[in-house]
């Protein structure tokens, strides 16, 4: 092989190796970073394995919200799509427009007691952090009842 040819092969090698690493990283990370939406009904049917991270979309069931009477910043409520209710616990700051009877989207996982441990709560009217995807998932889940 001539010198320039060798170089060219090496550069192509760089690019191939680089893209291979990048594609591997991307595939691995997509697995990690993806958030799939489920409705309370789907959760109740056991579609989601315990411990897996996902997003739940529904409404805060009227009369189910407990805040002030609980320790510290703990919050408990039921997320409902009218067919099924899923208990949710969350520790931290609630969004500005979080209310009973309103839409909610929570990130987290189902623990061994069947309780959804939320790491993040988004309220429906909190447009700032609400994607169209979550609005649609929520609307699809709980549009036909009074929670």
């Amino acid at each position, binding site marked *: 092989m001539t010198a320039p040819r060798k170089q060219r092969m090496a550069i192509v090698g760089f690019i191939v190796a680089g893209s291979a690493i990048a594609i591997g990283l991307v595939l691995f990370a997509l697995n990690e970073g993806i958030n799939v939406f489920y409705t309370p009904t789907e959760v109740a049917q056991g579609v989601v394995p315990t411990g897996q991270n996902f997003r739940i979309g529904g*409404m805060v069931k009227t009369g189910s919200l407990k805040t002030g009477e609980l320790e510290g910043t703990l919050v408990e409520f039921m997320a409902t799509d009218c067919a099924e209710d899923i208990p949710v616990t969350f520790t931290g700051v609630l969004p500005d*427009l979080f*209310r009973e*009877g*309103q*839409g909610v989207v929570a990130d987290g996982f189902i623990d061994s007691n069947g309780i959804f441990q939320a790491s993040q709560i988004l309220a*429906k*009217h909190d447009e700032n952090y609400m994607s*169209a*995807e979550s*609005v*649609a998932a*929520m*609307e699809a889940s*709980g*549009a*036909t*009842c*009074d929670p």
Partner: protein
Amino acid sequence: MNKRALLIIPGVFFMLMLGLLLFGLGRNPSMVPSALTNRPLPEFSLPSLNYGSIQDISQVSTEDLKGGISIINFWATWCPPCHIEHPYLVEISEREQELTFIGVNYKDDLDEARLFLEEKGSPFEKVIIDLNGRLGIDFGLAGAPETFIVDSAGIIRYRHVGVINHQIWEETFEPVISRIN
């Protein structure tokens, strides 16, 4: 391999992305139905506005809206499109005597609201005062004006975002109302 063929790759990639974006446009995330459609009115009891000859300032509650089809219109004097739709609403309400038109004065200056209705006429049987916007939140309001059709059982049957004019009234409101009837 012909090297020039390689130069087409960016273009191909771009066209693929453009196709994807076109798809994204078509799906239009703004077409989200109201969470309240086909659900009962949220519970409320709020004072009503006195203006002109109407001096009744009794509370209006969810119960008062049952028994007939009502049109609930959220408006405010600070909202430019509300000024545009107002004359249409006045005309429509004069024509459609069997419907109850309820206005919700949304986060407004009450004196200006009174002045507005006295000068331009009022399409409303009653005007509910929603000073802090709580009722708006309960209705899932995105902005003003928004108009809801509520049937005689107090169930929200339709939500319209934006200005109402004769064409919109005929094409979207009348079919819903005749279906409810």
